[in-house]
């Protein structure tokens, strides 16, 4: 054994020895940035109306890269007149082409779009990450492939609508006006456009003002796919344009994903118009960890639940409800795990947490976190380094949170987890349901009957048991209570874009 020490001398300082401990090799991830060139970012982007890229009359606005705060591109914004044009184009396309086309052929266009997205997936991932700030690994592995999957799934419905469960002759509604948020720009576009087109509607859609680029690349894909002019129209702009669009007399259906506050305004303004509305709004999901949970996977699920996409997820598991008997173990493991999360350049393939989408959102997260401090919760912040430039917020966990605190009730929409405890399943359920929201919930336990019992009793539209944040075009997604109404995905998602209330040998209305 003495020989071994001599041999050690030969070794470099960074190389360990097999016979004595303590020569740990420092482990660092060299930067592994995806190339921004792949995004082929253009200096200026235009709206897409009537099958053509056109200048908007709302002036040019810069869209910035939230990770660097530098300008990414100029985007031509729509005016109200442009929205009128877009609605007219959509109506014309509906009347002259789309409503007359067979479902099979409509489906073929959707299949083409799905393929187009897959073919330009890497480019789209880069565009998404540059414009949104989300880590490239998420845009690459989640957003873009799931967007393609949504088109592929709905393509197949186009000629099978009579089998969707809404009577023998489901009909399209006409022109759909859609407004989508900035957290999953392309994926939300797919969630909205794919079912609308499959059901036979034409679309006018407005992306979020801070993330207009990926949907305009999608427009190129739709153009290349030969989608008839005017079937999808994209108008860029801020909330005023969105408001003008959803209240436009020329549209027949409104679909909105965004905040509950704006959703309420839309519902109010459309009252009495008879327009079909679907809303996918906020959430304050409880992620419930029982003492018999698979703890290591639960920790992963908690991390995934709140730090996926910087917590900019309406269904984020922002309230951790942990059984008191495992609280210390879970929190300890959770902190260790969170400390390994890599925050920084979203383009780096090893980045786990990217940039907050906007200065405005960052200040909202900061403000609510301060409220957590003020109300007496205990803040823990990941020791990860935070870049000097760009909008970043380190992963944060509040413990000693009570149900009455703002951080337990309000949607933070950021990487901030509030931890509450419970003693019994009843108490977990009561706390989980004690919110005006009802979008999603998580359950962690290895007891099957408890999973099904809790899943049944939780007033939430999506319940993940022993997993979290799973999405699929075949699985309905949408909320209870103030998290909105209507579903996206699966057969029930189609109902949002079909006139399911008449022509069903009904009472004439029902």
């Amino acid at each position, binding site marked *: 054994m003495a020989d071994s020490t001599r041999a050690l001398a*030969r070794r470099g300082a960074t190389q360990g020895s097999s016979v004595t401990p303590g020569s740990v090799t420092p*482990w660092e*991830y060299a930067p592994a940035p995806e190339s921004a060139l792949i995004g082929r970012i253009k200096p200026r982007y235009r709206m897409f109306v009537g099958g053509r890229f056109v200048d908007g009359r709302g002036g040019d606005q810069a869209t910035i890269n939230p990770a660097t705060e530098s300008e990414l591109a100029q985007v031509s914004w729509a005016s109200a007149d442009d929205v009128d044009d877009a609605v007219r184009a959509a109506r014309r396309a509906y009347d002259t082409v789309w409503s007359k086309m067979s479902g099979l052929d409509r489906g073929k266009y959707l299949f083409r779009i799905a393929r187009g997205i897959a073919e330009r997936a890497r480019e789209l991932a880069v565009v998404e990450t540059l414009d949104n700030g989300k880590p490239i690994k998420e845009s690459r592995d989640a957003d873009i492939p799931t967007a393609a999957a949504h088109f592929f799934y709905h393509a197949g419905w186009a000629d099978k609508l009579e089998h969707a469960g809404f009577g023998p002759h489901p009909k399209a509604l006409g022109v759909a006006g859609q407004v989508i948020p900035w957290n999953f720009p392309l994926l939300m576009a797919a969630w909205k456009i794919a079912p609308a087109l499959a059901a036979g509607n034409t679309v006018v859609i407005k992306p979020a003002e801070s993330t207009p680029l990926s949907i305009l690349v999608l427009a190129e894909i739709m153009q290349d796919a030969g989608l008839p002019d005017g079937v999808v129209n994209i108008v860029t702009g801020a909330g005023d344009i969105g408001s003008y669009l959803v209240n436009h007399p020329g549209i027949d259906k409104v679909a909105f994903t965004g905040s509950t506050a704006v959703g309420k305004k839309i519902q109010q303004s459309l009252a009495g118009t008879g327009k079909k509305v679907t809303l996918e709004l906020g959430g304050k999901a409880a992620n419930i960890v029982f003492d018999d949970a698979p703890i290591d*996977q639960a920790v992963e699920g908690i991390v995934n639940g709140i730090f996926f996409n910087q917590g900019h997820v309406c269904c984020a598991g922002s309230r951790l409800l942990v059984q008191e008997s495992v609280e*210390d*173990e879970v929190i300890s493991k959770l902190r260790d795990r969170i400390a*390994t999360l890599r925050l920084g350049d979203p383009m780096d*393939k090893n980045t786990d947490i990217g940039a907050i989408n906007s200065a405005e959102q960052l200040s909202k997260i900061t403000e609510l976190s301060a409220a957590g401090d003020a109300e007496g919760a205990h803040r*823990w912040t990941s020791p990860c380094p935070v870049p000097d430039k760009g909008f970043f917020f380190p992963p944060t966990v509040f413990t000693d949170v009570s149900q009455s605190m703002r951080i337990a009730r309000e949607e933070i929409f950021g990487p901030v987890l509030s931890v509450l405890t419970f003693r019994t399943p009843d108490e977990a359920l009561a706390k989980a349901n004690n919110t005006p929201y009802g979008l999603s919930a998580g359950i962690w336990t290895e007891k099957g009957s408890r999973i099904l019992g809790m899943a049944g009793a939780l007033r939430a539209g999506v319940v993940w048991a022993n*997993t979290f944040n799973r999405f699929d075009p075949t699985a309905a997604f949408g909320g209870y209570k103030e998290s909105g109404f209507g579903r996206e995905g699966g057969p029930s998602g189609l109902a949002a874009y079909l006139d399911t209330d008449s022509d069903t040998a009904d009472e004439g209305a029902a």
Partner: protein
Amino acid sequence: MTLFRGDLAHRAGPDSAIGAIAMPCWCAQLHHICRVAALYDRGMGSPAPVALGDATSTRPPATSAASVAVPPRPVLPPHLAGVTADESALRRFLHGLPGVDPVGVESRAAALATRSIKKGSKLAALDLAISMVDLTTLEGADTPGKVKSLCAKARRPDPDDPSTPQVAAVCVYPDRVSIAAAELAGTGIGIASVATAFPSGRSSLSIKLADTRLAIESGATEVDMVIDRGTFLAGEYGRVFDEIAAIKAECGQTRLKVILETGELATYDNVRRASWLAMLAGADFIKTSTGKVSPAATLPVIHVMLQAVRDWRAATGRQVAVKPAGGIRTAKDAIRFLVAVHEVAGAEWLDPFYFRFGASSLLNDLIMQRRKQLSGHYWGPDYVTVA
């Protein structure tokens, strides 16, 4: 249990991590078990169970003076002391460990496998991986010449580049240890020997002890034993425990790797239980596989084992090493394992003392990738030496 509140930095550094003992809930439950066991010991009402390790009937006949003594029980921290008191306590403990959700651990392993290791990190990772290889030959056809050739390769993995690190150890059958020992004298390279009726483990304890003794007496610096999977699957954890403890006693200061043969354990829950069982019984290493059974070392399995050693350290302050073996053939695979080591167990395991690869063909791929990193172009197998 206010252990973690108000102590934000309690695991800020690697050293403090060892000190901070997070007592998991299932450890807390053990207090109860211990109390119950104590009652048993005082003969209160129930028949006193036979303590594990005292089952002298399972002891081999004494074949040499060195092996006569009853193996000393591994000394456990107080909160774990009762765990191995008897079969039922052991069973309660192992079955009280948190379950493993297969899809969760597999998706986590898959997600971590997408880490991108570039440039300087890659070179460092390749060197580290080479220094962690237990270069292995375990064939019926192993001749002295083959073993010598293997040892030469271990000493100089890449003759064209002396800066290439040595491997950690060679791994051979017990009757080939003496050859390797002669070849590697003075190199610092470890000599690992499989033992205990490798690979099936189907023999008597006395044979296994003799096998172990042969390896050590021939010069082995590390012993790779196999657990008795049949007995484990039959739920007789105490017997498996006794056997490991007996072999560890036989090993003395020689480091003991306990091969779980995860491919035969069938579930991640069993992998976790077997990992804890081995550590409770005194394992210095837990090792996935013999290499003779498929699946061998997979990323999700190594995740579960890395979680086990991490939790074990949190519970006892002791750091146990891990060795995946079998099926790791490419540098890319090896680096994925190292990423898992780094992110699941922690940087303290990125040390050949605490992590090994049981492999043969892996080494040449590591060397080819290393050369590529240094030269900028790809290499072919004709340019690296076979063992």
